[in-house]
């Protein structure tokens, strides 16, 4: 009995050591990623700016010095001064407050559209890549046809049918993004499903949905994540473009594309109405692109120095 207890004790120690080593391996993967990501100054700066923008969007109601919808005709077309650092628009509304409020809408539209695209695109790609039969062929032909539409045209057509509103803009942009994620996921799944761990899962009786979602998907998600980050930038730009054309967010809400459109009529006399929302938009897109580039370089093993 004593000998059995000793053996049990040895096994317990071995198990504790192997768990500790696993913990250290898990920790070092994140550390490795962080170390790789922070090697790029551009990615760090981009990440910092993006975090700042997200915090601004979250705290927008507290940060706005004035009501973004508050009209003051007496202050119309006022140039930038200390009390109104970004000037006022044609209705006397404070441009700085509207730029801050617009960050909420732009980031929300961008994030929701990408979530929509990733959810449906990854799902389609997962099923198509795993089944590799008539389902795969049908899905891929449909994807090819969707890819035949130039970027903004499909979004325009969908908005034409659904009508202009925030949720319809999200759907319009989201549908356009589905083909890219479907293709990338399918490509990754086609090689992942031939890995030994998938075969082992089948042998022990895992169902196909469980295999796809619990085992294959986490291993093919890295390229999707990189694309999604860059996709947010594209979604923000497209949402702003639709609003600029009068087919997205409707007035009097503060949206950057809408503000740029409103300022166009006063460009010669009040350049600030269009300029500051444009700078905010460009800065947001730049920071998202830098973060996306940083993620791509960190998650690509060929670019990581060991």
């Amino acid at each position, binding site marked *: 009995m004593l000998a059995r207890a000793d053996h049990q004790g040895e096994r317990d120690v071995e198990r504790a050591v192997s768990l500790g080593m696993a913990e250290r391996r898990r920790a070092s993967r994140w550390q490795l990623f962080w170390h790789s990501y922070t090697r790029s100054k551009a990615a760090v700066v981009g990440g910092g700016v993006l975090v700042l923008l997200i915090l601004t969007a979250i705290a927008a109601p507290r940060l706005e010095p004035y009501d973004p919808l508050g009209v003051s005709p007496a202050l119309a077309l006022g140039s930038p001064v200390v009390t109104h650092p970004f000037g006022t628009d044609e209705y006397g509304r404070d441009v700085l407050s509207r730029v801050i409020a617009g960050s909420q809408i732009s980031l929300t539209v961008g994030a929701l559209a990408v979530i929509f695209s990733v959810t449906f695109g990854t799902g389609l790609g997962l099923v198509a890549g795993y089944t590799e039969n008539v389902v795969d062929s049908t899905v891929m032909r449909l994807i090819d*046809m969707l890819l*035949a539409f130039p970027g903004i045209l499909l979004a325009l057509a969908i908005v034409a049918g659904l009508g202009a509103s925030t949720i319809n803009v999200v759907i319009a942009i989201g549908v356009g993004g589905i083909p890219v994620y479907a293709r990338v996921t399918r490509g990754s799944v086609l090689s992942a499903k031939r890995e030994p761990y998938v075969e082992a899962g089948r042998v022990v009786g895992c169902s196909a949905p469980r295999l796809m979602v619990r085992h294959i998907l986490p291993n093919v998600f890295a390229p999707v994540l990189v694309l999604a980050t860059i996709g947010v930038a594209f979604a923000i730009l497209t949402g702003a473009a639709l609003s600029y054309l009068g087919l997205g967010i409707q007035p009097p809400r503060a949206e950057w594309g809408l503000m740029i459109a409103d300022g166009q009529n006063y460009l010669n006399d009040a350049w600030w109405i269009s300029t500051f929302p444009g700078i905010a938009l*460009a800065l947001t897109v730049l920071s998202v692109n830098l973060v996306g580039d940083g993620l791509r370089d960190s998650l690509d093993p060929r670019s990581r120095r060991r």
Partner: protein
Amino acid sequence: MGSYILRRLLIGIPVVWGVATIVFFLLRILPGDPAQLMLQSTGGNAAQIARLRHNLGLDQPILVQYGHYLVGALHGDLGISLRNNIPVTQEIRDQFPATLELTAAGMLIAVALGMTLGVVSAVWQHTWIDSLSTIVAMFGICAPSFWLGLLLIFFFSFRLGWFPATGTWGWAHLILPAVTLGTGAASVIARLVRSSMIETLGQDFVVVARAKGLSQSAVTLRHALKGALIPAVTLIGLQFGSLLGGAVIIETVFSRQGVGHLAVTAILAKDYTAVQGIVLFVAIAYVVVNLLVDLLYGFLDPRIRYS
């Protein structure tokens, strides 16, 4: 080469059919009655809506509508525009030359600017020239095209008075819109040409060329650039298709005539037939351009057409 062209054409036909089908069903499966939407602003009654539905053929079974639509599209009949009662095909024919002119000019600027930036960045890699080129390229990618257009109007039209802010015909009316349209594509091309050139400049044949005593310009332009061109040509071709879509916004910024401006007007007026016809036309043009790019790529790189 002949069999390669035939294969690509045969693949293109079902894609065009698929595009036409998606356009048809897209505007029909979405919620809302098109006839009701079109008469919303004028407050049409039930009888007027029913008459409009009959005129549009919306009271027929969906497959019958689809059949009429396909047959009409094959004969170049895209229906009648409800805003001004003229054939949609005629509207597109009147507006397309302006869009084509803008897209071609934008492409020219994109290639010239993009190739120059890319080559300069690659040759002077890791210097201030490279950093400046990268910043310019990033600005081109990140700045919204409609905002960039307004900036150019502000400086070059209102402040300097060099170019007109609006209008369609004449080279003076083309410069600012073409620069706006081409800048985004130039930035994408510059990044690809830069990485492609860097890879080519590191190859053995470039080392040999330098060892033979050739000047830097001869090595770069006569030898290295050719190797970097193939991926750049593919990207340039694909960018041409994207520029077609970008023209939609630029025509609105500069109040230019064109298919893009027509599309936006039709959507805002809920001219259902015109929207359908314009979207179909632009999508097919995009497919044709991509097909031509595939053929050009096969012509440039024999490995593609024999694979």
